[in-house]
């Protein structure tokens, strides 16, 4: 009997749903066993279980494609509402595979840095155990469909992510970790409050059952007006809590200091995956639980916040003095793109918007993981990451620069990158009436091309003191470029995948029609009308490099100095605890008004 025949019942047969719980159990088991093995064993255990998890995720995706419909599994044999069910649909399968793949790659990249001989026992044990914890929490978020089960999963994620921020143990990192923890806890409490009210309103926590009750298909007929508005208010509470955890601007107070000080692989995981976990839950709440969200004004509130994040995040990235902080602010801008989903999905041609948001998750996860690992590489090589003192670093590390540019072009949206697909699909979802959103998309693309140009200009400019390149503290090995290179290439070439592959996203969500949308977007890249969107980023980068070099670092700073200082001052105020707290409540009320009027 062949292996395929043995695996048949799971991959294409009646037992496919039995793959779901192991996807959660493997990371939990590994996280529990890692401290028992000690710092040395933890690393091998983590890498081994990650590979196993990747295989499981791929198997689950294959089983899902074979089944053609979402898989559900009632744990313990207890069906909802009494029991807790797990479910797998297209978007969840995508996230499972993406998470396992990125964690495997980052894990392999970090295997040299986080070992007992290099990082010490404390950091080694904590890093690998917490990495497994992050994985467990994320998989729980993807598979869960019970609101309280999702709460516990998100707490697993938070409790693992917070100590990752302060692995280095400096004052700045500890303070960032504390702010992150407390802000995330306020978010969890708001989320939990919404879940509790949902239980009181419907007697169930299962997302599918609540959605059915709200849509009028519940056992007791249709939902009354009070139940409907109560449910929407509960969703608003949960949504606000999740916004705090996603670090959507202006609720981003913890993210820049956290990324500024965390070890590069931890930053990569936090930025590529952790903040996406809570976004994925927002996706579920507003698209799966709330019937007809397009009839509400919620898209306007969330979309405005997203546009604000795109513009302010990119501008702040352009002005950062440190490479890692530049990358961190770029994350804040890229998170904004996710939230354009909510206004655009509500429009008449909104189908591709959901595909665009999911592709943005993938594309950003790949490109940003690469960029953080590369920023860490630059920091190790020169002993710091201050851009002003990195002039000419491209001469010392040419291949590193090439990979940075590849990842940057994927972020800026050069075809056939994932970023290009995102902008193209969002653009077609926006249609002619959504010119405002399209304008934000274009501006965002130009600004991200501009900060990429700034890095390039720094890299080729002569170093301070007239030498060709800054002093190398330590020449990094070429092997360290393998993982960032793979990640960057994957992000850049995402659009070249056979369009049929994107049909995975549509399992359980036929309205997305992802395969056709992606094929259309790629055709558009070659058509005459797509000229600007396909070459715009490259042209901008080329022009901006010339400008940056001509102006020189100091002149550039003088020119934007006053404006930049003002903007940075405003942004700094937004990151004050009290201001962020008040904004959290204001956003809560704004959403409530949008939904209930």
């Amino acid at each position, binding site marked *: 009997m062949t292996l395929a025949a043995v695996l048949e019942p799971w991959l294409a047969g009646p037992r496919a749903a039995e793959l779901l719980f192991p996807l959660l159990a493997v990371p939990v088991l590994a996280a529990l066993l890692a401290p028992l093995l000690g710092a040395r064993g933890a690393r091998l255990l983590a890498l081994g279980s990650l590979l196993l998890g990747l295989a499981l995720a791929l198997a689950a995706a294959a089983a899902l494609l074979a089944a053609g419909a979402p898989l559900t599994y009632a744990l313990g044999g207890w069906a909802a509402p009494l029991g807790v069910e797990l479910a797998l649909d297209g978007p969840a399968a995508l996230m499972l595979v993406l998470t396992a793949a990125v964690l495997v790659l980052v894990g392999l990249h970090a295997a040299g840095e986080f070992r007992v001989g290099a990082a010490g026992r404390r950091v080694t044990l904590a890093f690998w155990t917490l990495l497994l914890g992050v994985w467990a929490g994320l998989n729980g978020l993807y598979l869960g469909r019970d609101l309280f089960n999702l709460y516990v999963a998100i*707490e697993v994620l938070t409790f693992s992510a917070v100590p990752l921020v302060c692995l280095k143990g400096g004052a700045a990192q500890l303070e960032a970790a504390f702010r992150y923890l407390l802000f995330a806890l306020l978010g969890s409490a708001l989320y939990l409050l919404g879940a509790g009210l949902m239980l009181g309103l419907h007697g169930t926590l299962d997302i599918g059952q609540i959605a059915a009750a709200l849509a009028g298909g519940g056992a007791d007929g249709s939902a009354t007006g009070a139940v409907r508005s109560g449910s929407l208010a509960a969703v608003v509470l949960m949504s606000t809590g999740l916004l705090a955890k996603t670090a959507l601007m202006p609720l981003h107070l913890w993210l820049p200091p956290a990324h500024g000080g965390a070890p590069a692989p931890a930053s990569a995981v936090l930025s590529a995956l952790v903040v996406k976990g809570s976004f994925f839950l927002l996706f579920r709440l507003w698209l799966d639980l709330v019937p007809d969200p397009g009839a509400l004004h919620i898209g306007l509130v969330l979309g405005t916040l997203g546009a604000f994040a795109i513009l302010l995040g990119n501008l702040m990235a352009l002005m950062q003095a440190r490479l890692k902080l530049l990358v961190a602010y770029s994350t804040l801008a890229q998170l904004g793109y996710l939230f354009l989903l909510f206004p655009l999905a509500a429009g008449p041609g909104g189908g591709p918007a959901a595909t665009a948001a999911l592709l943005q998750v993938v594309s950003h996860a790949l490109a940003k993981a690469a960029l953080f690992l590369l920023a860490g590489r630059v920091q190790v090589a020169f002993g710091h990451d201050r851009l002003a003192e990195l002039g000419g670093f491209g001469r010392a590390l040419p291949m590193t620069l090439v990979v940075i540019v590849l990842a940057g072009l994927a972020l800026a949206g050069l075809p056939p990158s994932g970023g290009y697909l995102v902008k193209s699909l969002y653009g077609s979802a926006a249609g002619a009436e959504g010119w405002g959103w399209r304008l934000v998309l274009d501006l965002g693309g130009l600004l991200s091309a501009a900060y990429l140009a700034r890095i390039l200009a720094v890299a080729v400019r002569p170093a301070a003191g007239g030498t060709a390149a800054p002093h190398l503290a330590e020449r990094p090995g070429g092997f360290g470029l393998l993982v960032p290179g793979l990640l960057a290439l994957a992000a850049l070439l995402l659009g070249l995948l056979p369009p049929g592959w994107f049909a995975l996203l549509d399992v359980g969500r036929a309205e997305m029609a992802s395969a056709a949308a992606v094929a259309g977007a790629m055709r558009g890249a070659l058509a005459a009308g797509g000229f600007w969107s396909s070459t715009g980023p490259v042209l901008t980068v080329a022009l901006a490099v010339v400008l940056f070099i001509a102006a020189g670092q100091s002149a550039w700073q003088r020119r934007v100095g006053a404006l930049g200082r003002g903007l940075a001052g405003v942004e700094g105020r937004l990151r004050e605890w009290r201001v962020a707290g008040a904004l959290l409540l204001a956003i809560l009320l704004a959403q409530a008004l949008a939904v209930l009027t």
Partner: protein
Amino acid sequence: MLPDPRLADLPLVVALLALALWLIATRHDRSAIIGFTAYGLIVAIVWVRLGALDVALTEAALGGIMGLLLLMAAARLGDAPDGPPPTWPLRVLVGLLCGAVTAGLAVLVLTLPEPAPNLVAAVAEQQSATALKNPVAAVLVAFRAVDTLLESAVLALAVIGLWSVGADAAWGERPRALDSDAPDPALVLLARLLPPVGLVVGVHLFWTGADHPGGPFQAGALLAAMVALVWLARLGAPPPVRSRLTRVGLMLGPLVFLLIGLAGVVAADAYLAYPEALTKPLILLIEAAKTLSVAVALALLVAGPPALPRARP
């Protein structure tokens, strides 16, 4: 009987709200924390009034170590504000926003549907399959087993995260957040007399939890409080974090739970299901391991990250 049972509830509500306002307004951190401990006791009484005895026991058992944790923190952190006081416009603004949230929640609470949807009948119907007479225990260990499992993982990860906060040089050492130079003789007396009683009550809470209010959380929290008392009185010391035995104790509960849950797919046709003949002994095994792990985790969380002995001048 009182003429109207709500006469007993109103003073409790007023006391809670007044105490909460005082807690955030009072100047000294330490008074606020002592007030918070008293607040926790009132909340425990409220849970009794709400008919939720399992929650009342958890609240009371956790409240004690929570107070200890916060008091030790206040002693180490000093009592200084870490910024200028908020300006009046900000206070008014935040006050209005918080008031709006409260008002909205009040409307939500008062418009919950009638008759209230509930799972009482569903739990009662299926409970016999779990061999447990306490419905809350049945929810925790059978119907929502996965939540309980993930929550034990949260506790274990919290301990690892807490340990990782310590200094590099102190790794492998023992936690010292509860250390004091010379414990009060009265405390030492208390730490000699109370733990035996606490142990008996803890085991009773664990054992009775299958059929009556109580269970691994409550028992574990009480045992952890006793252990913390012993450590505080320096009659014993927390184990060093390098100790494998401690780590096994910490992880045993979730590990046993998870392994039995995984085996369920073979033995009982579903993950996290129990084979009929073995339901009672398996649940007992899970709860025993869980009690131990909850006690270890909570005690370690109070004891803090590993630290070097303080240098004596």
